[in-house]
């Protein structure tokens, strides 16, 4: 059996404690509920970013369509909440009371069949996990079995994001169209818009995030995690060693999809609506940058990267809306050219040795991270210094 020590190095435990303290103590103490709710919203993106660390950083599979899964999770949740708020009493002015308002605007007179099961909360919660997993399985099975990878996979997932967006917008009677599903009020009679609910959802979100982090740590430290890294770096050798590479890839892609969907569902709960603007190409690529800024190899880094980019976006776009896009663009380039290992890379090279020395009383050299052997990046830390061929 795996004991605690082998699956979490001391640095990882420290990171988990610091993050927990930040999320549960520092942030709620220092911010009003408005800012805290914003942080909660950002943290839902962190689920996607963590999924991308597994998929892209560790497994080498870059999906540009993670927004699809975020959206699927979010839409499942939103459908349930919308049905609950569309009681016949609340929608009495419609020509068909009891169905969501946007359906009424589109002359739909009864609830479509695929909306029916979303009257049940249990079904909704299961759907949030199963629908994206199934969808990811179909995509993954079709592509990885045929050994499509790398750039092709990225472009095809991107096209899928585009298709789904057009479809959602086009079928507005069933999906709410470009407006999305708005005006969500209660969950089992509990007002999700009140401050108390926002606090509760924030903590729930934080707890889920920490749970997911521990789970991912477990996956990464298992044999599966090592195999992922191996097939990223030399897929053929893994295949020749007798492993079915495609199955591992499918698994990690589905896993990342489920994580994204959890994020999407939490997003809907905290923000109060869901719209196709989270499904498309642009949000999907932005989520990749959250992951890249954090350091594509570190699940903790992904959380901090998400927080940092979103915080910068909110701050800069308030003060200098014109400069924001320049900043974001420069960030994309910098994260690729100058520090490809992102925040976690910076932490490892500059802070981690000191942390080891002061907290763990360890000499700086020799196993400074405990994960170094696995996480050695596939490229040199400073590509700028390498002459082009």
């Amino acid at each position, binding site marked *: 059996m795996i004991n605690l020590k082998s699956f979490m190095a001391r640095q990882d435990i420290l990171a988990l404690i610091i993050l927990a303290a930040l999320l549960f103590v520092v942030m709620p103490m220092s911010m009003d509920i408005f800012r805290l709710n914003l942080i909660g919203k950002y943290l839902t993106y962190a689920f996607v970013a963590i999924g991308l660390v597994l998929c*892209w950083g560790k497994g080498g599979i*870059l999906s*540009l369509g993670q927004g699809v899964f975020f959206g699927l999770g979010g839409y499942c949740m939103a459908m349930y909440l919308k049905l609950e708020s569309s009681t016949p009493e609340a929608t009495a002015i419609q020509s068909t009371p009891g169905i969501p308002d946007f359906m009424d605007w589109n002359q739909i007179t009864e609830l479509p069949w695929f909306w029916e099961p979303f009257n049940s909360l249990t079904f909704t919660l299961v759907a949030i996990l199963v629908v994206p997993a199934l969808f990811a399985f179909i995509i993954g099975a*079709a*592509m990885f079995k*045929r*050994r*499509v990878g*790398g*750039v*092709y996979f*990225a*472009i*095809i997932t*991107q*096209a*899928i994001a*585009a*298709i789904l967006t*057009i*479809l959602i*917008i*086009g079928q507005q009677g069933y999906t709410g169209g470009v407006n999305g599903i708005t005006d969500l009020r209660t969950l089992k009679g509990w007002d999700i818009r009140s401050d108390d609910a926002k606090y509760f959802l924030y903590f729930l979100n934080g707890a889920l995030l920490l749970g997911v982090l521990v789970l991912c740590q477990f996956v990464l430290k298992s044999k599966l995690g090592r195999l992922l890294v191996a097939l990223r770096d030399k897929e053929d050798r893994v295949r020749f060693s007798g492993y079915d590479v495609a199955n591992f890839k499918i698994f990690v892609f589905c896993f990342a999809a489920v994580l994204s969907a959890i994020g999407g569902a939490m997003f809907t709960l905290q923000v109060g609506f869901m719209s196709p603007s989270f499904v498309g*190409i*642009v949000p999907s*690529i932005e989520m*990749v*940058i959250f992951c*890249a800024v954090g350091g594509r190899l570190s699940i903790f880094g992904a959380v901090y990267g998400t927080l940092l980019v979103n915080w910068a976006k909110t701050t800069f776009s308030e003060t200098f809306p*014109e400069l924001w*896009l*320049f900043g*974001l*663009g*420069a*960030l*994309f*380039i910098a*994260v*690729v*050219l100058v520090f*490809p290992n992102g925040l976690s890379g910076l932490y490892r090279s500059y802070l981690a040795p000191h942390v080891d020395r002061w907290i763990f009383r360890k000499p700086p050299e020799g196993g400074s991270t405990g994960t170094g052997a696995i996480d050695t990046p596939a*490229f040199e830390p400073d*590509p*700028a210094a*390498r002459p*082009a*061929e």
Partner: protein
Amino acid sequence: MFADYSWTELGSIFAMQGFAGLILFSVFVLMALGLAIIFGQMGVINMAHGEFMILGAYVTYLCSNFVEAFVPALFGVYFFFAMILAFFVAGALGALVEWSLIRHLYRRPLDTLLATWGLSLILQQAYRSIFGAREVGVTLPDWLLGSVPLTDIIEIPINGIFVMVLTLVIAISVYFLMFRSRTGMQSRAVVQNRVMAGAVGINTEKVDRMTFALGCGIAGVAGSAFTMIGSTGPTAGQLYIVDTFLIVVFGGAASLLGTIASSFAISQAQSTMEFFLSGSMAKVLTLLTVVGILMLRPEGLFSAKIRR
């Protein structure tokens, strides 16, 4: 749906529809050719391709304003100069980008994707700061507008013919450049075996830069031509990205012929479906079919038979 119409009418409409498909085909080829060169020959994913096209469109816009203000006599022919200028401006920016950005990333294709996406954001904001958030209208010489009536119903849009001719000219030039010239031979040699190409004395760095600049330059010309049929605004370039990449991937990345074939297949499919279905569904079905085929045949229509 056809019962109410006479045979002549139907015949004319099908002719028109075929022509519409051909225009779409030319547009797709123009869009995708530059990208196919960069992606197919270099393995670089240029997400800023659309922004290079819009750069060409803005160059055309500036030219039209300049000519209208200072040399109105030349207004009838300014479009040709504008396209040539667009080629060189976009190409020069391409060379600059290759030198400062892309050449550090040749071993990491997925990272070129992120970096060029960042570049596209910067370019978009630059256009917005310089030209304003609104779309700009490019004034065209009169002879490029309107249509040639053949029969009562069949009318051939002049700008459509112009785009088709332009596509033909560019495709032929690219063919000669890539397959009949020394530069093209070097470029292909670098694609096939970079180390060996370097060993026999080809300056691979220079070849890379020229190839990238060529791809961007063609994007610029395409953007310039699209001012006749589309809009010119800071974010207009993003509209083309998905279509363009799908065309290139569908055609088989390393094959220019494949790009042309896939442009033809996708444009005909889309234009036929648009005629029989509503617009949004036609688009969804086309994209779905392409993605579906790619899942079954990931190497695309034409795959390069090279031992790697």
